[in-house]
Structures are given as C-alpha cells and as structure tokens.
C-alpha cells in the first residue's frame, strides 16, 4: 500500500545513490539526453537543485542531521518529479518515486502551500476555487445537452474544468462527432494527484475512496481522461492504494482508435503548418504514451510534426508538475519558458501537448519571454480540424 511506507527500505533505496551526478545535466547524444534536470537548468543551480543533492538533504532530514524546518526542506519541494533523473539513473531504484515518498514521510514539516492545496481539495473538490460548480460552467457553452450519468464518463479534471475549459469543450465536440454517448458528472470530485505528489497521503486516500464511490454510483463502465496527471493518479496510484475503478483511458488512446476507424473526418488547418509535440511527463515517461498523440497530429492533413531537441523519453519537463507550480510559481514558469525556447529553436508555429497542466504552464512560460507561441492541447487541434462526417 502506498500509505504504508517502510522507512528502512526508503533509506536503503536513497543510499543506492552513488552520487555520480548524471542526474544533473548529462548530455548523452546516443540516448537523446540534452540535459536532465529542468530545475538545475533554470535556477541558481546549487547541488540541492537536482536529484543528487535532494537525496543528500532527504537523508539528512530523515537521519536528524538537518533540523526539520520549511527552509531546510525546500529541496524536497522544488522538484517537478518529472522522472528524467529516473530515466538516466543507472541505479536499481527510482529517485523520483523515492522523493515523493520522502515528502510523505516528512509531511510533518510545515508547508503552507502544500497544506492549503490539500485543504481546498478536501473542502471544495478542486485546488483552485471555492465554488466547485465552476468546473461544469463550460457545459452551457457547447450548444448541446450533456447528461451526468452514463456508461462512458468524460472525467474533465480540475485544470481543464476551471482553468482551460476549451479542452473540455473540444473533447465533447469530438466525442459527439464520433457518435459516442457520454456523460459528465454534475459534481466532479478531484482525483487528488497533487496531494499524492506533495505528501498528503492520508488525505489522498480518503479522497480516492470518495472518488471511487462517486464513480461507482454514476454507473460508469469506462472513464475518458484528458489530463495526464489525473490519468497517472487513477491508473497507477489508485491501484496501489487498493482503490478500484472501472476502465480508465486517455483521450489520445481513444481518439487515435476513432481516427483509425475513420469515424472522424479531419480537414486541413492550412498548408505547411509546422507544429511540435511536448510530451507530458505523466503521460509519456510515466505511462508510455508516446505514439498516440503524434499519430493523431499526423492524421490532420498538411500538418508537419517536428521534434524538439529533447523529446519522448528524454523530453524536458514543462515545469508544472510535482506541486512546483504552486510551491514556486516563478521557477515553474522559467522552466516552461525554457521549454518554449526549445520549440522556438525549431521554428514551429505551435506547441501541441496532451495535458492541461502542461498547456497552462507553457502558455505562462511563453508570456514571460514575450513569445507569441501558441500552445494547444491535441484535442483542441483535432476539434479545430473537425468536420462532421459527411460535411467534408
């Protein structure tokens, strides 16, 4: 169980680190690495800004060498948990997963940001707003009825529902065009991802049980997800917590199959549009969805998909994950700006991604460097190119 962390085993795992330092900025051309830690690249760059140093701090805190204060624990939270360090690490342990566990074990160290997010979620079913009804406001704008129960459930998630409702609108437009009967819950709970990432495990477990209960009552047999973070939480973390759900599927997997079966007709968005795809860490490195979104993009006529210097398994993070966007918003946006620069370097018109959290942060990153780079979710791109079957 994820809630039962064996401290001895955790320390033993942390000591697997031989401090070789390749988790900092390794450039390993043969395997596609051009740097590893996005935080190291975009911060003052002290040892505590990448995994080797974070592990030293974690051990010092766990062993009582370092006093448990918010200031001493900063290194634990200035990490996006993107997993690029895990990808390059030769050791037989998962550094990013270990850090997440350290956050849970040391959750007695005060952290106002972490705690206020957890309290928001537990009280209002989302980390952003006191009025959780805002999550479904977008439904009124789509121009057709959406039921709140059904066998296929579109789980929107908090970020798309509140911050980026376009993703939700595009998704339902696609589902309707493909003649899929679907529902969107009237009162959608939060998946609790951020509580898991930041160490509020007990709250996350309580929330997960409630989540499963709501889903069960809705009668859903299949859940479609557009958020990479929600997907990882529901498919990887919930089973570890002993919480069962019906089948959970990401929109890119679902959509690729629909496109392959010719249920949708996609039209050109213009000749020679050059786009790149940003791999969301939770969708790609964590769950292995690399080809699905790319195949969807390539199915749109006349679009040219080009890759950034780091892509797929070695893709640099957008900076939003692991609670960093809330813990240190400025650093998070700097990381996003760095990622946007990678897209600018290959002269593309837009960055396509498949996670509202990534889209939200990359857009913020583009803003701080005054780049007019358009950032869209893959569902927005498909919805734009959509013509209803027969209307060619």
């Amino acid at each position: 169980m994820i809630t039962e962390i064996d401290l001895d085993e955790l320390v033993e795992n942390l000591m697997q680190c031989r401090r070789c330092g390749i988790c900092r900025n390794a450039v390993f051309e043969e395997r596609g690495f051009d740097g590893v830690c996005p935080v190291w690249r975009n911060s003052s760059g002290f040892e505590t800004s990448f995994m080797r140093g974070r592990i030293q701090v974690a051990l010092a805190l766990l062993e009582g060498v370092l006093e448990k204060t918010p200031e001493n624990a900063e290194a634990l939270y200035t990490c996006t948990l993107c997993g690029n360090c895990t990808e390059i690490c030769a050791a037989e342990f998962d550094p990013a997963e270990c850090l997440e566990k350290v956050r849970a074990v040391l959750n007695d160290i005060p952290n106002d940001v972490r705690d206020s997010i957890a309290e928001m979620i537990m009280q209002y079913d989302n980390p952003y707003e006191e009025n959780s009804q805002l999550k479904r406001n977008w439904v009124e704008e789509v121009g057709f009825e959406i039921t709140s129960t059904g066998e296929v459930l579109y789980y929107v998630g908090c970020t798309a529902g509140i911050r980026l409702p376009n993703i939700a609108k595009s998704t339902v437009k696609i589902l309707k065009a493909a003649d899929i009967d679907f529902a969107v819950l009237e009162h959608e709970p939060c998946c609790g991802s951020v509580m898991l990432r930041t160490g509020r495990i007990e709250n996350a477990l309580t929330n997960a049980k409630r989540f499963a209960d709501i889903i069960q009552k809705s009668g859903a047999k299949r859940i479609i997800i557009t958020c990479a973070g929600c997907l990882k939480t529901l498919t990887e973390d919930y089973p570890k917590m002993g919480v069962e759900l019906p089948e959970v599927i990401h929109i890119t997997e679902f959509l690729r199959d629909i496109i392959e079966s010719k249920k949708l007709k996609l039209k050109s968005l213009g000749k020679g549009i050059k786009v790149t795809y940003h791999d969301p860490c939770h969708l790609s490195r964590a769950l292995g969805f690399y080809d699905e979104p790319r195949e969807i993009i390539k199915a749109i006529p006349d679009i040219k998909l080009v890759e950034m210097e780091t892509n797929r398994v070695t893709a640099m993070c957008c900076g939003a994950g692991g609670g960093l966007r809330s813990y240190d918003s400025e650093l998070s946006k700097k990381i996003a700006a760095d990622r946007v620069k990678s897209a600018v370097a290959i002269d593309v018109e837009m960055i396509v991604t498949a996670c509202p959290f990534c889209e939200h942060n990359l857009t913020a990153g583009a803003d701080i460097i005054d780049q007019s780079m358009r950032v869209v979710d893959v569902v927005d791109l498909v919805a734009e190119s959509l013509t209803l079957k027969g209307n060619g």
Partner: protein
Amino acid sequence: MDKKIVTELSKVVGKEYISTKKDVLIAYSTSASMSYENVIPDAVVRPGTTEEVSRVLKIANKYKIPVTPRCGGSSLQGEVIPHSNSLVIELMRLEDIVLYKDLRSVTVGAGVTFGKLDKYLNKHDLWIPFYPGSALAATLAGNVAVNGAGFGSGVYGCIAELVMGLEVVLPDGTIIQTGSEANPNSPGPFLRYAFGPDLTGLFIGSLGSFGIITKVSIKTHKRMRHIDYNTYGFNEVEKAERFLLKLKENDINAVWVALYEGRVLEFFLEMVGEEYGVPQHDWPTFTVSVAIGHVRKDQLQSDMKMAGSICEQLGGYVIGVKELPKAEWEDRMRELARSSYVHGWHWRILYHHQPPISWHKSMDAIWSVMDEYGVLGHTAGFLSGHGSYNWYPQIYFDPQDKNEEERVKEAHRELARRLFKTGAVPFKLAEYWKDAIEGMDDYMAFLKLIKKTIDPNNIMNPGVLGGI
C-alpha cells in the same frame, strides 16, 4: 563564515550565486567519493566568469579561507570534499566552447562536461578520443585536475597528453594562460610546449592545489567511424601481458584494451553479461577485450589482421566474442555510473598505473589484500598509453555496515602500500598515498616547496595533494 566576507563574496557573484544555507552546504559536503567523511563548508559560490573566480580567490586569500574548487563532483578519491570553515567554488557556470577547427583544438570552460563537448564536436565530425567512465557528469577541467584516464587512453594516454594549454587562476587571483595562447596575439591553442617549461603540466593532476583551472584547451581529432571489436585468449599471464605490449609496439590503434583474469571476467559478466548481450562462453584463463578504431577502413583492416597475427604468434587465439568489447566501448560515456550500480554496494577505489608487463603484480596484490582482509571486490583496467596499464580495483562495502566500511578502509590503505612496493604509480597523488610512499622525501619536499611558493597562505585545497 563572517557575514562581512559573505557580503564581499556576494558582491562578486551576485546574491543568487552564493549560499550559506545549511541544506545546500550539506549537499556540498560530499561527492561521488565513497567512504570519505563528509565535511560541511561555510559557503558555496558559483562564479560565472574567470574574472569572478579571480575576485573570489582574492577575497579568500585576503582572509586565508581554505578553498575547494569543484566541477561535476564526480571524482572518487576525496578530491572535492571540503575543509572545515572553507569556501567551495563551484565552476559549472563556465560553459563556453570555442572550436579552433584549423588549429585542431577546442577551448572549453570549466563547467563543460565530456558529454556536452562530444555532442558539439560530433556535429563537426570531430571528437576528443578520450572518455572517462564518468563522461556524462565529469568536466574536462576536473578531469585535467586529476589527470584522468579512460576509454581512448589505449592510444592517446591520460588526458594530460591531449591538453594544449590551460587558463588558471592562481591563489592570489592572478589569471595566467599557458601554452601557445600565452601569446596574446596567438590565433589560439596550437602548441602546448611554448615559452619554456611545461607550466601546463604543473597544474595537470594538481588536484586543485596550485590554482583553479577555468579553461582547458585540448586537441581535437577526426572522429573514428570504423571500429572493430574482438576478444583474444591466453592461458598464461606472461603471454597476455606481452600481447598488450606488442599491440603498442606495432602501432595497433587499440583505443580500448582490457585484460581480464578468468574469475574476474566471470564475476563481471555475472553482473552485466546479460545486459551487454555477451553470449555464454568457456572463457580462457586470461581474456583481452579490444576495440580498434580508425578514421579509414583500410587502416582498420590492416590492424585487425595484425592483432590476430600477434595473438597467435604468442600462442594465444582469437576468441571472436565481439559483444564484450563492443558493449564496453559503447557504454563508455557512463561506465562509472554503470559499474557503480551493477553490484549494489558502495566501494573504495584505488587507481594506479603499472607497465603492462607487470600487470600480474597488481593482480597478486589485490587478491592477497582481499583474502587477508576478508573483503569483496572487483578489479578492472585498461591500457593507458605508451607503456602503461591503468588499474582500478574496487573494494565493496555495505554503506549501512560501519564495521565493514572500516575494514575496507584498512584494506584500502594496505593495498596502496603493497602496490607502491610493486612499482605501481598513482596518476593522481590522492591523500591516502602519503602513508604508502617511501623513499621519495626529496620529491615530496620539492612538491611542498612549489606549493608554498604558489600558495603561501595554503588556501588551495590543503591536504589533498598527497597530504600537502
């Protein structure tokens, strides 16, 4: 550290690049060196230019603060473990690369790693045919400071042989340039031995005791695209050793040559054989794993034929299992990380060189110490130049078993003593050699004199270079 000094330092590097935070200092109290006591420094700075390094050293010298220069933090023998009440100067922000294609050289800042430079040079069909096993984390400047060896050393020797010149900040803050670039009108690095004695050499292997290397100018070579991998078997150690020597005598361009004793190879393949795709094989008593590289295919074919012929003339045979040297060579960028992890223990390492014909002397010393002290380990090595073989025995311990760690430390000290008596030499005079070396009083006195002359306040990494 006095607040006044911290303020002075922050005026040089900017507030963003100085830290006295306890968590940060703890992270700098250690490195990839295992089984060394962590020492927490007083402050860390990350200067962004050579001029900033110079101004920082002037302040450190004025207040007589011990300084630990640090790049990738991947060294293994305690070179960048700080001192009490000291200042760590971390150089990873010095990231410039300037290529002098027509001079066949490149100049890199102290923060440039081998991996980064390799990708850059590959675009120009060039490389530095030298890869320490820590190439993904280690910087060229750090490697020059320890005079490392690695993949490619079979032909090109330790990194010292490739260096054309250095930019160094002396303990008093003076910036000097060695090699042809000492001439301000020079087009760049094209000759190391310029303007008299080899001042470049003074800083190579100095472990940061004489100054801080801020830039390295180094030879570039056309990238070899033709590589042959093969294994050669011998039943007697003398013949295997002679094979190593003959490869050099016949100018075989063997960039990687590793001689394995049967039981050592067996242990090694138990750890990585499957991952490396090495087929099951009834290995001989001694196996030589070889990668021959060339720019031209005809050169390669000639060398391949000659290597096989030399082997057979010595009474050996061509094994023909290519997967072992191929995997070793292809893993050259992260061999340290790989070998660190495959066995699951922490370890102390004892780098040293022997002539190839004395290979067995190191092997004997290593086995005898392991047996006597009841410790587990592994050893490997490779041809490292004109007439030398680099050994890197590792002695393992469980990091959570303090008794075992102490026993390993004692075994390590004893091994250094025995190796010295066999005629072995360290290419870096790590601190623990001071108790192992004998009959070198005049040499050590001269070294101390140089240190005292360059660094009268003894601020530069005191005690690290052979205890000086």
